[in-house]
């Protein structure tokens, strides 16, 4: 349970960081919070040749709401994003999801951008990015490359970040008018990876009926699965049935496929009802 040897750099600027990554392509790996990467190193499941520690790039610590987007820098810790009141007002789903990410002590160090780049299909923030249609900004010596969420997640633990690229920030759209969100998941142990989970966004029309609804699921596919639930017309039971029909999860040591399918239905019902209630409360308020 000790990491294998690796080269190490701790750049002071983004320019220096991408130059080091370019110099070590394809053996470089970015170290931010390390709450996923260091366990992989300790268990020797990952053996990068060279780590580029970005913890000195304080210019990437930002969390701000601007131009209809929540912008989260690569060094913003989960705990900082979760505590940000502007973010909570602008896009409540982010806080609803982050409260379910591991434990306080892990959230103190782990970064939100890092967990998205890690692309764990059980990750709460991967589902948030996919559901809301966020963007990841990648930077290399060749320039900037924004990648939409729909193209970012390629497979389990595989995102569209090239070995010479640094993900500097993610942008997540703020909550539209007359809308509400909710997050629901089931995990075996407090703070552990979800056996199944769902993030829901519901939008009301002018007469407070549900105009549109969609959901993103974790732990039921290799990448976050986004489903349109608008056909349910705001009926949680119908939405649950749609979810059960549309997800095709795999069995593993944590749960059978049938149990995951069942959970997808139940959690969809709960989350959609909560999201609609939140949207109504927000429309009135």
């Amino acid at each position, binding site marked *: 349970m000790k*990491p294998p040897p*690796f080269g190490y750099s701790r750049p002071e600027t983004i320019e220096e960081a991408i130059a080091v990554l370019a110099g070590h392509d394809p053996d470089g790996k970015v170290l931010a919070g390390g709450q996923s990467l260091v366990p992989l190193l300790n268990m020797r499941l990952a053996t990068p040749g060279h780590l580029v520690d970005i*913890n000195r790039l304080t210019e990437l610590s930002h969390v701000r709401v601007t131009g209809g987007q929540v912008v989260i820098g690569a060094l913003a810790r989960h705990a900082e994003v979760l505590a940000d009141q502007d973010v909570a007002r602008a896009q409540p789903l982010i806080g609803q999801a982050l409260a379910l990410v*591991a434990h306080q002590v892990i959230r103190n*160090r782990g970064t939100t951008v890092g967990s998205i780049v890690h692309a764990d299909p059980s990750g709460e923030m991967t589902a948030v990015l996919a559901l809301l249609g966020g963007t990841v900004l990648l930077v290399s010596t060749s320039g900037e490359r924004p990648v939409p969420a729909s193209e970012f997640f390629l497979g389990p633990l595989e995102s569209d970040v090239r070995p010479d690229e640094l993900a500097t920030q993610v942008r997540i759209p703020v909550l539209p008018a007359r809308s509400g969100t909710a997050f629901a998941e089931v995990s075996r142990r407090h703070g552990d990876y979800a056996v199944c989970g769902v993030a829901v966004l519901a939008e009301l029309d002018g007469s407070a009926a549900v105009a549109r609804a969609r959901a993103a699921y974790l732990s039921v596919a290799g990448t976050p699965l986004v489903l349109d639930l608008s056909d349910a017309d705001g009926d949680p039971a119908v939405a649950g049935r749609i979810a059960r029909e549309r997800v095709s999860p795999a069995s593993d040591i944590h749960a059978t496929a049938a149990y995951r399918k069942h959970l997808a239905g139940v959690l969809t019902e709960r989350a959609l009802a909560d999201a609609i209630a939140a949207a109504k409360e927000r429309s009135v308020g």
Partner: protein
Amino acid sequence: MASDELFTVRFTVNGIVHDLQVPSRRLLSDCLRHDLRLTGTHVGCEHGVCGACTVLLDGVAVRSCLLLAVSADGARITTVEGLTRPDGTLSAVQQAFADCHGLQCGFCTPGFLTAITAALEENPEPTEEEAREIIGGNLCRCTGYQNIVKAVLRAAELRAEEPAADPAGSP
């Protein structure tokens, strides 16, 4: 594969400045225990699950097994050894664990003490539910959690009785 090049790091542990030469792959937990002989920080799972190795990094509770020592360069670290007051008396959290029988074998205790110490700085008056959330990331295999929850609440009481709480723990 890269060789074990040594890096110079300087950090403060429990108020004492240390200058060290460490390979990049040295975990902070191993650095504290092996290089600095501060064996109060315990190593359980070494992948961030058990919480026994929790230390305070610039006042924030983190897993020392998920941090490279070289990454901690320039930081102020507090281990369980640094929680005791300068006169050797127990801190509020330590005293509460003794009062409430919050430990048996003691393996997990350093991680609980550090995590709770940091959490009470942020939330000095936790409810029982919040107390359970505070210790949610720490595993104990013998005492069970009832007495540890009581210890969190007792520690909050003891802290409140202290004259002008000082995070450095001066008497």
